[in-house]
């Protein structure tokens, strides 16, 4: 019992010391901000109103990212004598706290290479940012800067709506790197991001079609924008289907439609007129119901 009391007392002492150290550190952070504010008053007042405010628990201060500025101050604010986190080394600085961003997906992010870093999209000091997550501008316009071709694809007549209240690029892509190709998100159960919204396509189906078996939604669909009303990768449905469903030589997955499917008749130019459950069926192996 005495040992337990001693142990608890020691633990309590450690906690008090820890709190005291943390309080002192927070005090130091606030002092640092006040010193920097002598010259950088606008930045400091903005910064104090952000989620990074040094008044907040476990928040960074000026010195957390910019380092000790004593020499910088002594030399009349020589910009060469202060660390300005940028590029890969700047990202490493951010990732000291935002580590889960790095570790969840780090290997798959094209942005983790050399070209795009935290400050390319996020503005750390800005308090009254019009955008969430301290973004410099809207997420869609930031993406379009470097991906103009993809932005142009959304001008096609059929596809997802990126306008007011619709989807954003980051609805499907993780700019920090996704589990799928093209930094696509994958939902928690390993399914392609599409079924996060289109839940009815998730299944499971007794008679599945492509998704999960040997492809994904993207095997047939062009989600950014397409010339087919169902955002298919081909203008004509029958041609899209027959590219897999043609037995020439054999050895691949996909059956040959029977001969009464006369493509000269309009009703057979759209396979989904009859095969209505093309995403998967629980009732019909031919996906008819």
């Amino acid at each position, binding site marked *: 019992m005495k040992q337990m009391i001693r142990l608890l007392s020691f633990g309590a002492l450690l906690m008090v010391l820890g709190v005291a150290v943390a309080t002192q550190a927070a005090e130091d952070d606030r002092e640092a901000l006040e010193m920097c504010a002598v010259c950088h008053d606008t930045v400091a007042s903005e910064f104090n*109103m952000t*989620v990074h405010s040094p*008044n*907040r*628990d476990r928040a960074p201060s000026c010195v957390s990212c910019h380092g000790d500025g004593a020499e910088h101050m002594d030399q009349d604010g020589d910009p060469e004598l202060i660390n300005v986190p940028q590029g890969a*080394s700047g990202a490493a600085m951010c990732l000291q706290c935002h*580590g*889960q961003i*790095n570790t969840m997906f780090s*290997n798959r992010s094209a942005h983790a*290479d050399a*070209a795009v870093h935290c400050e390319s999209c996020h503005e750390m000091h800005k*308090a*009254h*940012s*019009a955008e*969430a997550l301290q973004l410099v501008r809207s997420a869609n316009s930031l993406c379009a*800067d470097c991906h*103009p071709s993809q932005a142009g694809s959304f*001008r096609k*007549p059929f596809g997802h*709506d990126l306008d*007011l*209240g*619709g*989807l954003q690029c980051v609805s499907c892509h993780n700019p920090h790197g996704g589990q799928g190709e093209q930094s696509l998100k994958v939902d*928690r*159960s390993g399914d392609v991001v599409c079924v996060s919204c289109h*839940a009815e396509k*998730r*299944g*499971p189906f*007794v*008679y599945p079609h492509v998704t999960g078996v040997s492809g994904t939604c993207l095997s047939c669909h062009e989600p950014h924008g397409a*010339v*087919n*009303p*169902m955002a298919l990768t*081909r*203008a004509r449905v029958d*041609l899209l289907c*027959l590219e*897999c469903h*043609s037995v*020439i030589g*054999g050895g*691949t*997955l996909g*059956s*040959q*439609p029977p001969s009464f499917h006369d*493509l*000269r008749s*309009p009703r057979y130019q*759209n396979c989904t007129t009859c095969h*209505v459950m093309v995403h998967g069926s*629980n*009732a019909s*192996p031919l996906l008819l*119901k």
Partner: protein
Amino acid sequence: MHTLRLVIATFFIIAASSTVVAQSTAFDIEIGYQNVDVSGNEDMFKTQINQDSGFVLRNLKINYIDPSGESGFADRLRVDASGFGGNPAGRLRLDMGRDNTYRLRLYYQQLKNFSALPAFANPLLDEGVIPGQHTWDRTRDVLDIQLELPLWRTITPIVGYRWNRYEGPGQTTYSVGNDEFRIASDLEQTESEFYLGLNFATKAVFGTFIQGWRTFDGTDRQGLAPGEGVGNNPGTSLGQEVELDSFDRTTRSTADTPVTTFHVTARASDHVRLIASYVKADSEGETSLDEMLSGSLVSFQLSRFFQGLDQTIESRTENPYSRGEARFEFDLSDKAGLKVGYQIRERELEGWAMVSSLFMDTLNFGGFDPRDIQVLVEAQSGYERKDKIADLRLDLRNLGAFSVWADYAVNSQSLDVSQDISQIVLPGGQEGSFDRRINTFEVGGMLDLGSAKFILDLGGQEADDVIMRTDFNDRTRVRGRVDWSIGRLFRVLLTAESISSDNDASDIGYQADTERYAADLSVTPTDNFMLRLAYDSYSTDTEMPIRIPQSFDIGSSVYAEEGDLLEGGLTWKIWLLTLDANYSTFENTGSFPFQMDRAFARAAIDITKSIAIAGEYENWDYSEDSFPIADYDADRYGVYLRWRR
């Protein structure tokens, strides 16, 4: 509309409460009314754009920070919302919290989906029947709530709920006896997931464990669309008119999926990280379908005419999935990093269906042998898929003005598909074992000269076999980009990309090529004026042999497109007046020629420092060469009031 009112009411409550607390609150709200006028094909307009007359929340942003942490309910709050009302989509995001107490994230989205397409799934288009067969006018609502409780320094409990509802009317087809009938559908589907978990974080190890329980419940009630009993085949089958007098079908599907995710990161040192994750989801589904119909019908499967059908289908599926991953990341120096990973994914499916069909009042094709026929079919299906992926990435950065990177990955796929022999009714590959190995490489580099960046990357994939005919066995991508700017005055972005995929096996002969070129120029001579010009050009050319069903001859599926997008816009602020204008024209030639022009203009006047009124005009002009019946020209006029602080 209810949602729009709710969002606006929420804004005023939050705005009022924040002023009482008197901390740092910035907000920006713009709301107005728009009128939409469509000439031409309104269904096509709704399918593509779906703007409607009504009130619209143009923008709502609230950013509240209490740097002192003295506020009672939250020391930070962020609200973003837009859309709703006359807009086909609406979004509301709330993120609020208090240090060491809680963090609440809420996301709500509403999407209106409309589809009624004259050229789609409509064999009677040539006869002037306009509505497509697969049409819908449905709404999807998605709600996502997550609460984190950072009550302890190392462990943060998490609780969350996600809800996704899709409902509304639609039309589909029922196919029987060489005829298709239009069926009216009333759909209600809900997917929801409740989850519990925790984040844990120490100096060296942190991660997340979450256990979720996802359920799906969907009901689709279908009946014969009014006046559609004659079907779409004007002729007879074996001398008999095929007609439906009545049709009723109810399909109910449920699925339960417990989902477990675990992720942990350990920092062995400042330069070495070890990452591991594991995901397991065991989905089980059940479906029951009841269908009753009567009429004058033909079954080629039975070789009989029949007067009615009473069918029930019961089915079950089990669909387990798991993924495990381990990754090591080494910072070799501040200029070099090496990452190595290995991942295994496994997915299985076992399906079972029992179909009981009672064909009533049947006659053989000679008109004899009247009787009811009961058909029972029990069938099973299944597949098993395994992916093993090993990857390696090396990046060298800050080598003067250069940075370079290289990736290599090997994906070994293994797939076994099995079908019940009674269900294989068509020739070809409906089952089998397939193995495929894909090697992927990518190399890239950047030259950063300060005001100008040059980026080039080259990627390639090689596969030793294919599973589907459209799988490539060789794929190459080259992409280059230039980003040149002169301060804020001038910025030009140039992008060029070429992708080539092929499968040169003699029985496949698949070839697909895509090229894209884009240029984006922005000029900002003063803070009050910005001009933007953009040009995007792409071409795609795909060809592969197909076997034509009616003749079994070899033909070609050819798909070619060439598109050009030209866009220009300006923003000009003249004292109290701000002008925004944008015009784009998109012309597509090839397999599906069309042209779509969009024009947008907005003028906003600042009445006071925080209040402005704005007027907007937008035009969409769409035309198709092949189906001019789809053309439309639509205008939108709107008046908005903006208040910001």
